[in-house]
């Protein structure tokens, strides 16, 4: 069990990087409720594990825990329905609909839907790199894979996105 001091330290860390954690969870899990639950679980887990943190990049430590809680959530969800279906069933948000009005917003919506359609291992690498600005080393640590794997996943993810964006606009891929 955690001590008071350690718990407070993790609380500050979690609050400071809550947007990063929620964003990662939201992109991995595809809906608000699961993302919020996973991040909350991650906080509880991190507070309990606070005494095991041994220096280094605290944000990456926190995001690694968040990501693992997201995977737990995905695994739980997969018991109810197949994983692919769960990953694809990403509800459109109100924002997406409003954005359809404007050209620039439309291309943003396209990027978002193609990013959602990427295989999860490419998506999470891209999110950690482009959204959270983590280095290859940090991404490798969060994902628990070698740096070479990080590089090839980023590269494959980018290539898939670029190819998808070059395709003529179709009916929204959100409804996959």
């Amino acid at each position: 069990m955690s001590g008071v001091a350690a718990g407070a330290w993790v609380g500050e860390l979690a609050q400071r990087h809550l947007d990063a954690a929620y964003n990662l969870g939201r992109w991995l899990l595809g809906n608000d409720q699961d993302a919020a639950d996973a991040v909350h679980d991650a906080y509880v887990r991190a507070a309990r594990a606070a005494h095991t943190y041994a220096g280094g990049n605290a944000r990456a430590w926190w995001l690694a825990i968040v990501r693992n809680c997201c995977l737990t959530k995905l695994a739980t969800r997969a018991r109810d329905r197949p994983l692919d279906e769960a990953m694809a069933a990403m509800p459109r948000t109100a924002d997406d609909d409003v954005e359809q009005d404007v050209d620039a917003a439309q291309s943003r919506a396209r990027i978002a839907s193609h990013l959602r359609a990427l295989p999860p291992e490419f998506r999470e690498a891209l999110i950690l790199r482009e959204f959270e600005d983590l280095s290859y080393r940090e991404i490798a640590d969060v994902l628990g894979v070698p740096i070479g794997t990080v590089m090839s996943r980023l590269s494959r993810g980018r290539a898939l996105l670029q190819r998808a964006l070059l395709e003529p606009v179709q009916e929204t891929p959100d409804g996959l």
Partner: protein
Amino acid sequence: MDCKRAASLLEAYLDNELDRADARELESHVDGCTECRAELTRLGELRAALRDRSLHYGAPSALRERIAATAAAAIDAPAGVAPARRPRPPASSWLRLAAACVLAFGAGGVSVYLWNRGTDDAAASRVASDLFAAHWRALAAASPVDVVSSDRHTVKPWFAGKVAQAPLVRDFAEQGFALVGGRIDYAGAQRVPVLVYRHGRHLIDVFVLPAPAAAALPASIDREGYAASTLRLGDQPAVIVSDMDAHESAAFAKLLTETP
């Protein structure tokens, strides 16, 4: 460097993961190769698109409050004895713990690495190196600008579509510092607007930086006969890089920072 090798390094370059020697070599290849430059631009555009804030989900305030409430409950009723100081177990133990739920559904072993310890100083020195490298690259390139214009009304809108906040653009031709144009460059992983001026034979780059990138930069840096000095351009941090002497540089900085 041939195109095949350049292509294999482009992403690492963009991700700021190349060492300086490789980066310089790649830059000189890209300067002379239209295809690789186009590929770098495409990758840069994809990055800009991905980094659009509209794709980022902010944490809902309900979650923030929920975590605060859980934290408060833990402090009100602490379980066990609070250690006076945080003990320091082996570096890998938290990773094993973080990996526990992955292992729980059989994802297999998790490699354990030591963390990079990034410091503000290291980040600042990397940004500074990027700025000097970008300046030297611009000097070596056929043209130091992407948009050629002495008219600030052309330069500012050109930036508007390419970076989050278009910089304050003014021409000081009458004072001896003529606006040449603008371009987009990279500082770390971020696209930054660069205003280009000419003073006599000196080419001057003014990099307009996002606040975090500029935060730890010292007021001035000298490197191989070139100098960088930081200042504020309107409400944004900026860095002047040129081979002007300190006197000319100060005069130019004064013009830039004066309110119009």
